[in-house]
């Protein structure tokens, strides 16, 4: 299992479109991906509905864990995506 913690840095937080971008990236990997934040979760990282219910605002920390053959790459890609502010 691979795990990373990233801070949400985009202004609007993990909103619907950002969650969509996250899901699209997560879905490229085989690994099972779970996401939690400050004690809430963990939700399926490939489910947009799961992610938005976390309600993660700017400054909060997202914990991403992945389990599977490509878990290292998956966590790295997702952590970079979050750190880049979802490319906004």
């Amino acid at each position, binding site marked *: 299992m691979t795990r990373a913690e990233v801070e949400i840095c985009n202004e609007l937080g993990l909103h619907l479109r950002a969650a969509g971008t996250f899901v*699209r990236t997560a879905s490229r990997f085989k690994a099972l991906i779970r996401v939690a934040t400050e004690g809430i979760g963990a939700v*399926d990282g490939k489910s947009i*509905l799961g992610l938005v219910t976390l*309600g993660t605002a700017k400054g909060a920390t997202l914990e991403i864990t992945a389990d599977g053959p490509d878990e290292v790459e998956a966590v790295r890609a997702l952590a*970079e995506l979050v750190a*880049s502010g979802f490319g906004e």
Partner: protein
Amino acid sequence: MTAPGELRLRGIAVSPGIVISKAYVRRAEEVVVPNFVVDPKKLDAEIARFHAALAQTRVEIEATQTRLAEQMGDDHAKIFDAHLMVLEDTKAIEDTEAFIREHLMCAEFAFNRVIGRILDSFDRIHDPYLKERGADIQDVRRRLLHNLTGQEVKSFGSLNEESVIVANDLSPSDTAMIDRRFVLGVATTLGGRTSHAAILARSYGIAAVVGVEGLLESAHHGDPIILDGNAGLVILRPTAAALAEYEAVRQRFVELERQLLTLKDFPAITLDGRTIELSANIKSPDEASLALAKGAKGVGLYRTEYFFLSRSDLPSEDEQVASYSQIVRSLSPETVIFRTLDIGGDKFASYLGPGKSELNPFLGWRGIRFLLTRHDIFRTQLRAFFRASSAGKLKIMFPMITGLEEVRAACALVDQVKGELAQEGYAFDRDVEVGIMIETPAAVMIADLLASEVDFFSIGSNDLIQYTLAVDRGNARISYLFEPMHPSVLRLIRNTVEAGHAHDIWVGMCGEVAGDPLYSVLLVGLGLDELSISAYMIPEVKRIIRSITYDEAKMLVRKAMGLSTAAEIRHLVASVMHERFPELVAEDTEEQS
């Protein structure tokens, strides 16, 4: 029944304008969710019915997306990508199927339950923007339930005369269905600054007040209504006195708006014939249409760093050519001034290098300093600019210049790139102007030396003020020292203009100061040839420029230069501007110290 009387309700003003019209009341249509039991033998058929509705809803959302993209641009339509993902969320689909099988309940009931649980968890969210996103999920739920039950989604079909839409809230689908010819304003019970109703209103340029408690309960379809999007006020069934009062207010507002917009196709020229190039600052190709709609004369500052910051790897030369060509083409025949990658300071990208780890990033590895040590990135960007120059007219400028060596090194690379491209057989404009940003006091002090080696200057007001006054704007304890009216700043601007003009090059200014109507006359008087500002401010600044003479502007500068403190200068400029343009510049309320 007696007609109910006037009712004034307060809300949040999210889009300006004053409308006197009648209410088009749209009540939230609650879908009746059927709860029939499914015959165990027909479970597969029920699940197939669910999937058919999913497919149909997908087609609908895509159609709505296309329609909205045509009306409001791709950016606004992007939200429907997320709607499609909500619709096709594997977890929600699996949960719904499981619920149908387990409880032998119909698809409507099952899906409503699954989504309902998700919406319940939105109650826990504190962040107002994220909380409002629940409306998007509601929107998808409503569409799917409509398709399952065969009920039609109520459209705004009967909206066929000019009205103010009164609703609980507007969903993205609603906003796509509204015929914009008939919407004069929007008032909603729910919502905040970032709700879809607010976004719609701002992009249509119509008045809106949201978060008006008790609105829907008190409004009747067809009620006379006054919507004050400036003050955040809704008046239902206004009295004759209120109508008369607001008619006068509206006239004044409309007249101002009309005057501003009639100037769209006119140049920014003073009464005595001095033309100022009034252009827009933008950072992505989709902002081009807004710039043109507001009457911009080209783009005076295209911030290329946003293209780099919006991704996780370096854009290739071809990707950059495509993006730059698009913007140049959409603004043709006007010119686009591209600023080379201005990274560092307060803009970082992990893959690019400069990081927050620097103790003093504004004095650190940023702007031209970064580019000159990363020739790979610099060269690629320059090549892309020149290749894009075959699509229209562009100019290039370098940020954060402090010395002539930097200018020479950058220009040498420009020449090298031109040579390469010619050899490789690319068509490009050989006469692309190359200029620099003047944003450090050092650059101003040697402006005469710099001017003989570049084609133009563009003063970056924010950085110039920050470096001159040694003040970090982000530091609340000293941000009061950030003062564009400081005599030192005015002298630096004047010196830059004089040095540029002595060498026959033009001098512009980009940045917030350039776009603040308060400073417009002063900047014209200082002799600037170009002002590049936020597209939204163009009509106001143009109006000011067209109402003054260059002589009167120079007079104001002479008076200002005769004063010795920022407070005195600010007081002078504010009182002159307020007296001359009371509708554009607020009164100077600060005490003179």
